[in-house]
């Protein structure tokens, strides 16, 4: 156990007892998301502008999942239990982004801020770097590619011993997950977004790459971490495989419902 003294959870809990900043700060930051969203909603209300109840519900579900993933029952257990780690990973990287992005927060923000700020934002959105990053293929590489790097290199073990690295990994997967959902089926404005076929192919490749990684983890007993029980690690790989399925089906439904609504509109229903 000596080698594990530096481990975040064991070390932190031993020195400071009940209260730990690293237990409180991440969920508190995540709680700012719904606060900001509801503020925007309030601005819409005072102007008597309409905002979809669905969008609100999606965003609140997404932020609740994110907060849940960062609270001690999951975040604390993730250091000892690979299944808790994987649940956290699925929530932060896949399920929370689905809700957050389908809530169209950028549209709400643009409607709520002064026109000048909105214009500057739109100009920013047309910058080449945004265009490159927002392409589904780039989002796919950042998202699923990031998972391959995390689980198949020593990065996973390193992130278990270094708090900054650990949170950087979380932020990366949240951001990359949101980028991916937005690039595939996001309701927020996306200049020069490729067509349905490209997005469907990227979703297909992403789902396949995720399933393959899930099976590789199962076969090779990864992620390899001293506190992780091998049988629980295999169960975690299965959780990744099937949890990923559910998230990808939901994303496919989001993508096809855009297609469906567009056809209804263009054919007059």
């Amino acid at each position, binding site marked *: 156990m000596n080698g594990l003294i530096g481990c975040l959870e064991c070390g932190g809990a031993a020195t400071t007892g009940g209260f730990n900043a690293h237990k409180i700060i991440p969920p508190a930051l995540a709680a700012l998301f719904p606060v900001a969203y509801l503020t925007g909603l309030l601005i819409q209300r005072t102007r008597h502008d309409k905002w979809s109840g669905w969008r609100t519900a999606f965003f609140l579900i997404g932020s609740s999942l994110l907060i849940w993933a960062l609270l001690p029952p999951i975040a604390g257990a993730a250091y000892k239990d690979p299944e808790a780690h994987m649940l956290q990973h699925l929530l932060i990287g896949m399920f929370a982004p689905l809700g957050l992005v389908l809530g169209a927060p950028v549209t709400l923000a643009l409607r709520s801020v002064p026109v000048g700020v909105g214009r500057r934002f739109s100009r920013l959105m047309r910058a080449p770097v945004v265009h490159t990053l927002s392409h589904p293929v780039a989002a796919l590489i950042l998202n699923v590619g990031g998972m391959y790097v995390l689980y198949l290199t020593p990065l996973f073990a390193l992130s278990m011993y270094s708090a900054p690295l650990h949170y950087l990994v979380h932020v990366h997967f949240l951001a990359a997950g949101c980028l991916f959902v937005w690039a595939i089926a996001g309701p927020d404005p996306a200049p020069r977004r490729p067509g349905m076929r490209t997005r469907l192919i990227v979703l297909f490749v992403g789902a396949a790459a995720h399933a393959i990684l899930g099976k*590789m983890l199962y076969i090779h007993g990864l992620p390899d971490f001293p506190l992780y029980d091998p049988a629980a690690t295999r169960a975690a790989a299965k959780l990744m495989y099937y949890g990923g399925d559910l998230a990808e089906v939901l994303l496919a439904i989001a993508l096809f419902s855009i297609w*469906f609504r567009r056809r209804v509109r263009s054919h007059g229903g």
Partner: protein
Amino acid sequence: MALISRMRQNPNRSKWGGILVGIAIMAAVDEIVFHQLLAWHHFYDGSTLAIGLLSDGLLHAGELIAMVAGFFILLDLRKHGAMSKAHAWAGGFLGAGGFQLFDGIVNHKILRLHQVRYDVPILPYDIAWNLMALILLVVGIVLVRRAGRIHEGSVGSSPSA
């Protein structure tokens, strides 16, 4: 009226919607009944080839998207009154049989992803599996032909067309 509505139908799209849903239903049966309930199939049995792992991932992703795409295509056809039920059913059997046969021959035997069942003589299981697939496929082929005859018969015999 019946004639007009039949002329709006899109038999080809109905058939493909059915094929996608058929694939998805068979994949779901495979996953739910054989992997989870009976636990005959194994998630990984130690003899999968590397290429099998790749094809498993691609196939798995394809099944998920086929399920969503198929249901949305049928939903869209219904919404626009363009559904040919006969073609959709025929497609459903074709998709289910085709998937079952592919799973039985390519996945189980060539790529050795996993077997139908373990610790039993495997041959009867393989024969039953692929025979079932062939039956579904033949039913699909018969239904496609019949759907085509019904469709052409009614549209072709239209006096005003």
